[in-house]
């Protein structure tokens, strides 16, 4: 049975009507955390977040406190919030910005105070038209309320926050590509090193890039203490986390659960969560953390929902999105469609990613649609090996960013686990499911 007694942190206003308005936000304790933060000095605020051991919720799972500590001391520095959520089947940030935009804004102001940055930018995925409207409204209300602008709540801290719309590019979720887009350029990831924008970021100035869910946790941490947050979960995975559950499951949705205390079985099958497989089907496989992650089979259902617990089994918790595939799902088709996504979204800078993704997609296409051969399986794996040599996890890298090395995950998982299904496609001259 799922362990569901943890407090709801980022979804505390779930079900509250008009939670996106300042009025309701204030009625439910909004901006109290900011007042508390402003009564402390910036190091104390940062220490509270550090004590929470909050891992970044964007996908890489880097400790937020450590990222903050890396910020190069400079007269000018920036905080950029990544709400470009585009990882297929990830829809948690979409939920947060539409339902509780003030919580995001409050988290940003507190973080900006801790970091003593001069300006903050909230980069929102362009396709989130309603989310952009809600956040713009929240920012307007926050200015009017005195929570943004000059001398916030009468303190000696001023901050401007700008909501910056994207325009449709998965790669802009990569933090250096996001910075390029924010500079008005094509979303090309930057060459590393420097590895961290905290050293060289926006306009070459020190910049912290944090995810929306990470920010949404900050007000609760300030009000309840970093230690209370760290008491939830286990090991390196503290607190609660949003999981976006989709695919062939009875109750798809966004669920906030305590980390590590619950397993994938709880998430997918518990009546209070996923409720089991749709239409009484049988679980065949599931993606544990976004389409960049290698797949799991029913054998891994009892893996706890924790960063290291999933990582040690050769995959990742990534963006917290779990896609359920059942016995009606054609894994060849699913893997082909995921490859097509990467092929479309490759920015084109690096040859292995730009060319490799297209080659793999075309071979996967013919396997699914007819014309495939058994030799194609080795061909696909060889192409994958050219993008991520060794096909190990975490993958080796031949490209500027991690989009390239993410391409092999799904195809390699599908081929290694469901070779018989590929054979059936070859024998049938196309997909036997249609």
């Amino acid at each position, binding site marked *: 049975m799922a362990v569901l007694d943890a407090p709801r942190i980022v979804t505390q206003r779930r079900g509250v009507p008009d939670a996106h308005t300042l009025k309701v936000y204030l009625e439910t304790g909004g901006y109290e955390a900011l007042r508390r933060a402003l009564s402390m000095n910036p190091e104390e605020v940062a220490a509270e977040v550090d004590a929470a051991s909050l891992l970044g919720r964007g996908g890489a799972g880097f400790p937020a406190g450590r990222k903050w500590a890396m910020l190069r001391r400079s007269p000018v520095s920036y905080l950029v919030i990544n709400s470009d959520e585009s990882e297929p089947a990830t829809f948690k940030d979409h939920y947060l910005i539409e339902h509780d935009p003030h919580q995001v804004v409050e988290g940003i102001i507190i973080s900006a105070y801790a970091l003593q940055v001069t300006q903050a930018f909230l980069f929102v995925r362009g396709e989130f038209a309603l989310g952009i409207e809600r956040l713009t409204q929240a920012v307007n209300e926050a200015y009017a309320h005195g929570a943004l602008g000059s001398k916030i709540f009468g303190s000696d801290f001023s901050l401007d926050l700008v909501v910056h719309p994207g325009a449709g590019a998965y790669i802009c979720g990569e933090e250096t590509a996001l910075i390029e887009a924010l500079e008005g350029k094509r979303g090309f990831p930057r060459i590393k090193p420097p590895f961290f924008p905290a050293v060289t970021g926006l306009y070459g100035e020190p910049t912290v890039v944090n995810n929306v869910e990470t920010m949404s946790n900050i007000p609760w941490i300030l009000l309840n203490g970093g230690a209370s947050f760290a008491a939830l979960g286990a090991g390196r995975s503290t607190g609660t986390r949003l999981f976006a*559950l989709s695919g062939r499951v009875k109750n798809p949705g966004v669920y906030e659960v305590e980390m590590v205390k619950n397993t994938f079985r709880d998430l997918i099958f518990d009546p209070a969560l996923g409720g089991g497989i749709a239409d009484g089907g049988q679980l065949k496989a599931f993606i544990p953390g976004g389409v960049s992650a290698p797949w799991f089979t029913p054998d891994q259902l009892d893996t706890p929902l924790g960063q290291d617990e999933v990582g040690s089994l050769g995959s990742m918790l990534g963006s917290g999105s779990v*896609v359920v595939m059942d016995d009606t799902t054609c894994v060849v088709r699913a893997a082909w469609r995921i490859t097509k996504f990467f092929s479309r979204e490759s920015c084109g800078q690096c040859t292995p990613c730009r060319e490799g993704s297209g080659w793999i997609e075309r071979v996967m296409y013919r396997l699914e649609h007819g014309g495939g051969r058994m030799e194609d399986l080795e061909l696909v794996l060889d192409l994958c090996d050219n993008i991520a040599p060794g096909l190990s996890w975490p993958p080796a890298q031949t490209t500027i960013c991690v989009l390239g090395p993410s391409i092999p995950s799904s195809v390699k998982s599908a081929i290694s686990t469901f070779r018989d299904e590929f054979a059936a496609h070859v024998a049938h001259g196309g997909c036997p499911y249609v």
Partner: protein
Amino acid sequence: MSGFFRADLRQRAEELVTLYPRPRSATIPLLHLVQEQEGYLSEAGIEAVAALTETTPAEVRGTASFYDMFHLEPVGRYHVGVCTNVACLLAGGAEMLEHVESTLGCAAGGRSADGLFSVEESECLADCNLAPCVQVNYRYVRTRTPEEFDVLVEDLRSGRREHDIPPHGTHSRVKRQGGLRAPKDEVAAERARARDARAQRDAAREETT
């Protein structure tokens, strides 16, 4: 340049540039504004953005052509996006796209004969719990069956959705009120004072240990 934007948008365009430390950062928001006026990115619009951001039309076009939401050719008044990525694929997204294409009489990437609709095969639109996902002008319409989509098309044709689905190009109907409020010199002085205070605290801590 100054003649391109209509009066209300010109004011917003000029304000946008002032929100950023460098004008070029306003490129993407300004391009959205061009689409709000024209429905797509016209040559004159690109030139106007170049002038505002102190760049060249080639640089603006270079940025614009990278992003899926920017259209260098006219699209329909209603731009329909149908997701076929993995979560939607498992919920009939590909079949929904076929239905949309045949209903509107145009393939993905194309525009209907009357210019009212255009269709796009989208990547994940982050609404996977309500798959298959359809957006019109980047608004979630949540038509999950062919029948629901057909009703939507009738509503769009007869103008019954004007209140919640503005024409393609109008991105955010909520406008930012006012520019930056924290004066640069004030911020610089604040941060300098904060740095000094911190240095004193660090020194005091060192003394006690």
